[in-house]
């Protein structure tokens, strides 16, 4: 049976007419396309943790294409944080300079023997394709790419329970293990207004679901588990209780809304550059594969940008201290959370346990 695919269009926060028009042209261009179901959501990153937008996306069980005003990595790991997981679908929508970077990535990957968290994660057997709407100014490349992926998708053999048809094999059931919880089943059998979804035949043109959630602006980190080595530097550095560990001691963004608006300090201290703040103005922190120059003029100097010459670590320490002050707490400077980068404590500070560990090391 041919399989439908869900296409999620995440609307930007900006009122730029060019951006709005691009979104509309993409939606318009896919409306009559057989085998495609459209889900229109507000800005992906701002969706509330358990809002209708996230619930709708979790309900999509099959392959999905997500178009958003975020870097590919930013979008992928934002979805992952929201419990919308899958394998990486490869897209041809790339910034032009990206080719060289991929070669560099591959070279680095060959030399890399580090254990990444991603290698041990059990992901659902479906693909998520993240397309960055900032790469092309026109809709056509996106329409072509969505159709290409949809064709590829339709030819794949399906092991998921996609018998329901409609919404990319959407079964109204979420959960990483694939096993529906009873309340999810109940919601599917007797949908509420929030969860009712149209079910369309396989060859019918697009069903459209529009999520009208009105989220406020959010700010929190997401972890790229293909880079993360579980070194715990972020949980040591952050003093606001954002990070935690799961049952198998894997780092996770446990309390995203504890994060301090505008502060990217943990991302700066991450040795693997695995922490993404998708809304940060620095491309590498926002998830760019490489640093792309903006096409617009940067007026920051005009509006009073100070000249800084500080290192990433100095910036992180400063940013954390600023946030501690804002929260009415004491600053800590470089004294907390940078254990591996600083001189060991004076010898006198060692206690019995330290000596024992040293002895073990020597042994």
């Amino acid at each position: 049976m041919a399989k439908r695919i869900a296409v999620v269009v995440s609307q930007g926060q900006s009122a730029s007419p060019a951006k709005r028009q691009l979104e509309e042209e993409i939606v318009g261009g896919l409306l009559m396309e057989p085998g495609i179901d459209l889900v229109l959501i507000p800005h992906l990153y701002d969706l509330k943790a358990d809002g209708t937008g996230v619930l709708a996306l979790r309900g999509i069980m099959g392959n999905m294409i997500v178009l958003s005003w975020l870097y590919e990595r930013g979008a992928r790991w934002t979805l992952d944080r929201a419990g919308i997981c899958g394998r990486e679908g490869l897209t041809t929508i790339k910034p032009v300079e990206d080719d060289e970077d991929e070669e560099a990535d591959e070279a680095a990957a060959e030399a890399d023997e580090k254990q990444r968290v991603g290698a041990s994660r059990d992901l659902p057997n479906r693909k998520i394709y993240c397309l960055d709407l900032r790469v092309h100014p026109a809709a056509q490349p996106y329409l072509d790419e969505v159709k290409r992926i949809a064709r590829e998708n339709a030819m794949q053999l399906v092991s998921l329970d996609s018998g329901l048809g409609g919404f990319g094999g959407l079964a109204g059931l979420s959960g990483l293990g694939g096993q529906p919880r009873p309340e999810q089943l109940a919601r599917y059998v007797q949908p509420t207004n929030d969860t009712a979804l149209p079910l369309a035949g396989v060859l019918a043109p697009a069903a459209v679901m529009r999520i009208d959630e009105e989220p406020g602006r959010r700010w929190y980190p997401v972890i790229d588990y293909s880079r993360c080595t579980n070194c715990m530097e972020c949980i040591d550095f952050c003093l606001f209780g954002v990070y935690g560990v799961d049952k198998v001691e894997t780092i996770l963004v446990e309390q995203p809304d504890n994060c301090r608006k505008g502060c990217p300090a943990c991302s700066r201290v991450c040795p693997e550059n695995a922490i993404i703040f998708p809304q940060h103005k620095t491309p590498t922190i926002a998830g760019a594969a490489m640093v792309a120059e903006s096409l617009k003029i940067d007026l920051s100097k005009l509006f009073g940008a100070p000249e800084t010459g500080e290192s990433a670590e100095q910036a992180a320490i400063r940013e954390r201290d600023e946030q501690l002050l804002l929260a009415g707490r004491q600053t800590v400077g470089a004294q907390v959370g940078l254990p591996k980068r600083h001189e060991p404590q004076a010898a006198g500070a060692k206690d019995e346990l330290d000596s024992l560990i040293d002895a073990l090391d020597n042994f």
Partner: protein
Amino acid sequence: MPAPDPPLVFLMGNFEAEFPIDRRYAKNHMWGQFVAGVWRFGFAAYAVRLLQDVYFLDWSVEAGASLAERQELGSIESKKAESSLYAPIGGRLVRFNDQLLSDPSAINLDKYAAGWIFEIDGSGESLLSPQGYLEHLAAVWEVTQRTIKGQMNE
């Protein structure tokens, strides 16, 4: 009621940027007006002319935050530019004009009133008089043009 005093005018090429004289100005091209015990700020005509249509504002600090002068507090995207934004004076950030988050067009339509951007409880001592600001503009205008042209050519 007497007619309001005419604004001062600075020529940006052929464009006449107007600056009302009922307020003060910061060197980072914001106007400041003392309203109900706090300083209310917005973009002056000079900044709006360079930005043109504003599409998006975002804040990297929360209301209530204590700011140092020139501390970064957010970013802006417009038709012609994107930029970080910085505090024109030090003090406590009392509130943002939240209306602008969903619709920033007031910055273009009514920059000296409804398009106000935020309010800071602090000392306005460092702010310039309208006349002083115009002198500052005359001094930086050449540099501004070079900044813009330089980046255009990159």
